[in-house]
């Protein structure tokens, strides 16, 4: 049986980074990717937050195929015919070390895989890992078609939809309450149109996070500016989706038909339609990260920070892969790869700032279970402002009166207060 020191399953941000780090340390590493080219199976519905990534890939923005530095964030509540936005712009986010970048995975992932190869890792693409080889409860390698390949340790970085851990009985099935489906279009637009429409320059861009206009289905939408295209999509919880009886592409259509979204995508040409599941990322959903002979990194390990305002998957994947690699090197030094020796990965991960953030925002996940956040409040915000900003021929009222009018028959003051407290607990306190 052919043998490597380490086999990495998946050449996404987690897999490529683990492969690079271990190869740099002199290990004999094999990275196996199921797509014919890395990235061809991958879809991003988020941003690449740069600080943690730059610790691993210094000044990566000079070399990596990123799209635009995100210097404008719009948090928008979409009512039926209204939109209420918080518009944040930062000149600092437009300069090194930046804050976040829009990316397209079919471009980014091949670059990451190349970094692993240049460090000395072997990459094979277009090959499925059919199973983890397990002997006496210990992972000892992989089955890929007719080939069995052995390794001291396997890094499972197979992504959200990956089935290896499930097949091997190392994780339970996904719960439709904890997983969302993202559907996305890439819409081509000339750079000068993007720059004028989104008020940015040649290198910078904008990110929109939108709630409402998903027809009451729990979830939200996003719009990111790429160099010469927009990434436009909705992310909806799977249980809420099938309860709604609406097709995902219809929810995307309705979202795109909202007057605000329509204006932003106007004149663009859809060039790709994609879909991807994403774990809701609750801290309480943390999965088992190590076992005898294996570690799990990236979204396969459900590592995702989501506090409504920021969704951090790719940088968490990269951070987790670095810590996993360090733990493997430490286990190698100790000469054994058991759950106990590899367990150092968990301790290392807990010491990272991104893990701390994950804990800090653990109460924010409850917000995403509150249906009023997706249906009632976006409309309510628009209605209150409409009452305040419209010069009617009938007498108006102050803000509280306007809110009281808008609330009538929809929610009680008690419900509103409880929800505000929940938002405060999730985001503020």
């Amino acid at each position: 049986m052919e043998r490597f020191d380490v086999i990495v399953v998946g050449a996404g941000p987690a897999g490529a980074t683990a492969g690079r780090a271990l190869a740099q340390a002199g290990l004999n590493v094999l990275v196996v990717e199921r797509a014919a080219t890395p990235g061809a199976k991958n879809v991003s519905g988020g941003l690449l937050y740069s600080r943690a990534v730059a610790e691993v890939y210094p000044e990566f923005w000079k070399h990596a195929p990123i799209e635009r530095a995100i210097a404008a964030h719009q948090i928008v509540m979409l009512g039926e015919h209204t939109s209420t936005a918080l518009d944040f712009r930062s000149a600092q986010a437009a300069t090194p070390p930046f804050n976040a970048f829009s990316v397209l995975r079919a471009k980014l992932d091949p670059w990451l895989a190349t970094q692993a190869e240049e460090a000395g890792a072997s990459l094979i693409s277009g090959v499925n890992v059919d199973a983890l080889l397990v002997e006496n409860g210990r992972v000892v390698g992989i089955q890929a078609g007719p080939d069995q390949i052995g390794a001291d340790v396997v890094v499972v970085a197979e992504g959200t939809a990956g089935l290896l851990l499930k097949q091997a009985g190392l994780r339970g099935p996904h719960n439709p309450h904890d997983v969302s489906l993202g559907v996305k279009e890439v819409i081509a637009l000339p750079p000068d149109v993007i720059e004028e429409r989104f008020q940015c320059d040649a290198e910078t861009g904008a990110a929109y996070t939108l709630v409402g206009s998903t027809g009451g289905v729990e979830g939200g939408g996003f719009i990111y500016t790429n160099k010469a295209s927009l990434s436009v999509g909705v992310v909806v919880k799977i249980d809420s989706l099938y309860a709604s009886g609406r097709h995902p592409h219809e929810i995307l259509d309705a979202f795109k038909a909202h007057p605000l979204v329509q204006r932003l995508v106007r004149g663009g040409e859809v060039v790709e339609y994609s879909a991807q599941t994403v774990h809701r990322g609750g801290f309480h959903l943390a999965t088992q990260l190590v076992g005898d002979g294996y570690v799990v990194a990236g979204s396969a390990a459900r590592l995702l920070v989501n506090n409504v305002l920021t969704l951090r998957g790719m940088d968490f994947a990269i951070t987790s892969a670095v810590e996993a690699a360090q733990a493997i090197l430490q286990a190698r030094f100790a000469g054994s790869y058991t759950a106990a020796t590899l367990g150092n990965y968990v301790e290392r991960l807990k010491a990272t700032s991104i893990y701390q953030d994950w804990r800090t925002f653990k109460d924010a996940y409850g917000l995403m279970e509150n249906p009023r956040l997706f249906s009632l409040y976006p409309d309510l915000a628009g209605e209150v402002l409409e009452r305040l900003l419209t010069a009617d021929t009938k007498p108006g009222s102050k803000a509280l009166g306007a809110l009281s009018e808008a609330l009538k028959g929809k929610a009680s003051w008690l419900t509103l207060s409880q929800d505000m407290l929940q938002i405060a607990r999730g985001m503020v306190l």
Partner: protein
Amino acid sequence: MTAASQKPQLSLDARLGLDRYEIDAEQSHIAVDHDKCKTCTTRPCLVCCPAIVYRWTDERVAVAYENCLECGTCQIACDHGGRGAITWHIPAGGFGIAFRYG
């Protein structure tokens, strides 16, 4: 802004037509236990799939696996909201969707 300035939304078929696939003509990567589907009253697969791979035709589920975007939603939806009739595998190495942007 007038309605006339808007391009109509693309149909789902037109959208899928934009995507690049390496179709495995030999085998489907999706297995369905049709007996289970017969007794299924909810059939969430018909709703949840972003590519409408699953259609109820002639009293059974027809599976257009060649359109699959490989998100895995059907498996999750069927396991929990249906009868656990779907077994979704990843397509054979190199086959299936090949995103050009992602």
